């Protein structure tokens, strides 16, 4: 008996639909949670992370001779 036979007999055809529903559910939850109010301050701090790098290796970056 080949793998295909085993799997076709095991009634997995519902798997796609179940997974899809789970997925849409999880997705909607994440979206709601992110959009919900109340996290502004934490996000503000997180968003500044790239800018707190205080190693400044660039001498006169931006100043130019061209």
């Amino acid at each position, binding site marked *: 008996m080949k793998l295909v036979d085993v799997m076709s007999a095991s009634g997995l055809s519902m798997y796609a639909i179940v997974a899809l529903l789970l997925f849409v559910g999880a997705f909607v939850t994440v979206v709601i949670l*992110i959009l919900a109010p109340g996290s502004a*301050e934490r996000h503000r701090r997180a968003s500044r992370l*790239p800018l707190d790098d205080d190693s400044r290796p660039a001498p006169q970056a931006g100043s130019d001779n*061209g």
Partner: protein
Amino acid sequence: MSTHVDTFSYDDAIVRKFLWATIIWGLVGFLAGLLIALQLANPIFNFDISWLSFGRLRPLHTNAVIFAFAGNAIFTGAYYSTQRLLKTRMFSDGLSNFHFWGWQAIIVAAAITLPLGFTQAKEYAELEWPIDIAIAVVWVAFAINFFGTIARRRERHIYVAIWFYIASIITVAILHIFNNLSVPAGLFKSYSLYAGVQDAFMQWWYGHNAVAFFLTTPFLGLMYYFMPKAAERPVFSYKLSILHFWTIVFLYIWAGPHHLHYTALPDWASTLGMLFSVMLWMPSWGGMVNGLLTLRGAWHKVTEEPVLKFFVVAITAYGMSTFEGPMLSVKSVNALAHYTDWIIAHVHTGALGWNGLLTFGMVYWLAPRLFQAPLHSKKLAEVHFWIASFGILLYVAAIYSAGITQGLMWRAFDETGRLAYPDFVETVMQLMPMYWVRVVGGTLYIVGACIFAYNIFRTWQARPKTYEVPMVSAPPLPAVYVDEHPAPVPAGAIARFTSAGWHRRWERLPTLFTVMVVVAVVVASLAEIIPTFLIKSNVPTIASVRPYTPLELVGRDLYIREGCFNCHSQMVRPLRHETERFGEYSKPGEFVYDHPFLWGSRRIGPDLARVGGKYPDLWHLRHFEEPTSLVQNSIMPGYRHLVERELDFDGIQARVDAMVMLGVPYGEAVRNAPELARAQANDVGARIVEGGGQAGMETREVVALIAYLQRLGKDIQQAGGVAAAPGATP
């Protein structure tokens, strides 16, 4: 909390290495692109040299720009930003260097093997199995180095750019391994584990997600780091960036089947692919808006700062291609666009615009910092920007109209209800002016890239004798998490829950976060893949479909070696103009022995699924010797070397044996494949002589390819399923 402070430095030497690799491979990849663009405008540029012909060089071009240029650009930006965002040096300098040299060695291996014709025939996964293994090893080294760095970080919160890197690293690993599963038949030859519909499904699950997780998510990570750096302000909305991340991870993985509309793929799968692709439009534009609005209040800087100009146009190109993509995945639009140059225009908006310009902007920003000298010339950077943008515009406008033109010509009927342009070559000739405009556009882009390389080279020349290595200090992370800036906890369970503190907790827990990404990717992939693979009713079998004979099998391998599938599809869609032009539409059951599938994605030449028996053997021989001798204006390269080279009959057995391992019922051919092949080759040789052709062809490679072409589409004509193929009756 401890008051101890660590002092450390960042490894910028590795960033400099990746930066040079980006520039060098970029030039190589663009030049390869220019050569194949010339070949389509005039086949003379194939030079009648086997390893320079279009079918072999097209994969070289795509691999060079995706994995060599874009790949090294990702590593440049990721190594620079990861260390700084996590306030730590990379986990291991040894692994960093192993990653760098390993990746370059893989690229060199690709640059040698692809022109030689060693290919798995799967787009963007052409490299043969030994190189695939090397890729997996190098990728794992990169992953260990990356996750090790996260583990040693001195910043608790993981910034959104890093999430994009995490998702890319994990997903690329999964995609690469599953799509490349194959059975070797020699050191440089393997057969895909999957056949026909399944193989196509796997390939485009991979192919689309390679675009998503190699050309999109890592570059979004770069955007979320370098855009705020260059604009000197934080990203417009961090919330939106989280939303952008999760929607992309959730949705992208489902979108692959949109590459296979109207093919033999089951309908539900392609509808699913379409649905998710259309949904992707939303978060993509959210991301674009977020990137662009990071410049709020700083738009005046764009006029002065070439870096920002590159970023603005790159992000706009991202927006354009992510609008066009969902549109192209709508079945009715796809029916027109698929197999045409429209798709080529679409990917070049993405590649030249989004990936290319973002990379250039990033390198212009990095160079003065890495080489510790001011940028040689801002003016030249401006010139580069304008030339490149104009080049993109020419390229995309020309190829977009070429695509629409050809698509409309294919489907045009005259008043009598017959095809208006039954001669395929006529639809090709129509494109020639546009192909020359593409050559001009591409050349401009390359001129820009040369100016770029020169500018960076001169900046490097002005570097100090020894690089200063600035020391950074930061406190180590306490073992137990302490919130240094506790936000007021809102009252009420629901408010607490929705305040997204839970998400912050995940972000601090990279392992859990990574697991979530893996779950998202794997669940979606399995949901798509399992049904097509394992439910029999999805691929109805056809009794008359038989395995290829040993000779046809080598012929098929020659078709793969020469990259014919880069110009020819083997998939007639159930659309009236296609069945009128090519014949009966393709059925899933026809491909059950096709390891790998060869449906193709672009019709530069006509579909070949029904070409068997259309012409005599001698016609094919003459056509390979010199296509224009039979079809004036043909842009197909000549294949004289196939006529000259001796066929390796003794090597056939190994190929048949590998097929048998894959479950192809070869019956008596299992033991005497070479004899069966010789017998069939003699028949073909005799027919060529009978038709008035030269003698002695039966030992040449060309007979195998002719035998294969003559078989295409034949099985389905055998009513009642009477076996036909000699030697292959199970």
